[in-house]
């Protein structure tokens, strides 16, 4: 009986997560287009529903009913595999993400995470690394020069930025003495990590921007020079897969930033429910992503590489060393 309840609970949580992640791009696209519009003194979507609120639904229907086009010269198997490869990892990663401690429903304590892994951080980085294959295969399989160029760039970009990103969180792990995201948040109950790890946050956030392939690092789909980059040849629902994946990663990076550096669900000043605090912080970072997108121009390819290897990597390594030295000095007998 116990087992069935536990399994049912996990199934319910997973289903809820999947539904949430699949549905979240709807308000996010609306928000992104609205913000874009207003920043450019336009209005954004206005016609479908109140202030265009139903526009994403209309777009979704359009994408679902559109012709699913596969180029004649494409590698059909990889072409079909790529969107799934791009979509699945961001979803899988959320299994390891805690959204809070626990809430009690009907006398039961329900934890706000699917699993509390002791190596959650490692798991997140390992799984999210797979996402790049979706982009690479997508670009390669389409057999179009724009798509290949897009995925080549992604390849180099992902490799260059995953290293500083991984290094940036080591400081956090040192402070919390654990790789479990839950423990990391608990360790920040007093002071948020941003106070101790400003450099780590900076490196992580910039690398996160690059990992999510958002402006100013969206070279993989630079619409100015590559058509649409790796998804040039995709249409209909397969294109939607890439879109959903992109939003899921934006969300993931925001969630990670909040968990690692901004105290997770630990509130400050105003006493709000922990989950609300968490969502508010995540919403702020999602907004920051959108805000950046419509403020900054795209970096050139060599600049991108220079930032990754010459700025972020040394910074993150210096951060590790300094954190280690200070921690060692503080805990020395």
């Amino acid at each position: 009986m116990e087992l069935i309840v536990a399994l049912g609970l996990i199934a319910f949580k997973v289903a809820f997560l999947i539904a949430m992640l699949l549905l979240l791009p709807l308000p996010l696209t609306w928000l992104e287009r609205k913000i874009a519009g207003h920043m450019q003194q336009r209005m954004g979507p206005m016609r479908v529903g109140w202030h265009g609120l139903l526009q994403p639904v209309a777009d979704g229907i359009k994408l679902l009913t559109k012709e699913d086009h596969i180029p004649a010269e494409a590698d059909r198997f990889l072409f079909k595999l790529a969107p799934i490869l791009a979509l699945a990892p961001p979803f899988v990663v959320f299994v390891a993400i805690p959204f809070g401690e626990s809430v009690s429903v009907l006398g039961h304590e329900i934890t706000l995470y699917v699993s509390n892994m002791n190596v959650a951080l490692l798991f997140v980085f390992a799984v999210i690394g797979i996402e790049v294959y979706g982009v690479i295969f997508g670009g390669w399989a389409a057999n179009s020069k724009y798509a290949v160029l897009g995925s080549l760039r992604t390849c180099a970009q992902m490799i260059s930025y995953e290293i500083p990103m991984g290094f940036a969180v080591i400081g956090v792990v040192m402070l919390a003495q654990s790789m479990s995201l839950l423990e990391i948040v608990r360790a920040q109950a007093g002071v948020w990590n941003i106070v101790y790890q400003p450099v780590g946050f900076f490196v992580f956030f910039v690398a996160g921007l690059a990992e999510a392939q958002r402006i100013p690092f969206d070279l993989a789909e630079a619409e100015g020079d590559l058509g649409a980059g790796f998804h040039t040849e995709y249409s209909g629902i397969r294109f939607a897969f890439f879109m959903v994946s992109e939003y899921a990663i934006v969300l993931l990076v925001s969630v990670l930033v909040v968990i690692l550096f901004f105290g997770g669900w630990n509130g400050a000043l105003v006493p709000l429910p922990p989950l609300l605090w968490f969502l508010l912080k995540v919403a702020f970072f999602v907004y920051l992503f959108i805000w950046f997108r419509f403020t900054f121009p795209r970096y050139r390819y060599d600049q991108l590489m220079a930032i990754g290897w010459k700025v972020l990597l040394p910074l993150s390594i210096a951060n590790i060393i300094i954190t280690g030295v200070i921690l060692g000095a503080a805990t020395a007998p």
Partner: protein
Amino acid sequence: MFFADFATALTLTFGYMFSRSVTMQYPDKEKWLPYARYRGHHFLKRDEEGEIKCVACELCARICPCDCIEVVPYEDDKGNRRPAKFEIDMARCLFCGLCEDACPADAIALGQQYEFSSFSSRDLVIGRDNLLGKPGKATTGGGVVAARLNTEQDVLVVTSAPHGYNWWRNIRRT
């Protein structure tokens, strides 16, 4: 300073987020009312007795750089020279307004109407009686008025009371 420009850029876009948008929801919500000097669709004027002012001197037809006005004169029952046929090919007109300047009788002018697109260039040859009925110069202008699309009446936009006249002044320009 390092990153100071980033901060400036971000504050700028943030400020713009709360500025008025320049979008005009034409044609089913809002519409622009042109200034009085606007050169839109031609119209022919009438005098106090309600007669057409044009004396069919054909000066406008002569001066027109596009050769798009055709005037055929006749003598009406009062013995006045009037146009029997007065046609402007709107498809060729470049809205230079020379015809308006040349007219000795102050009979032709370019009015405020700008919604006369058509599927056929033949429909754009506008005759005398049609020109007499066209809207004249705008008296107020430079503003956005509420409007709604009237599908019964071609694409003409029905406007209601004007509002927001300092529209152009209200938007943010940096």
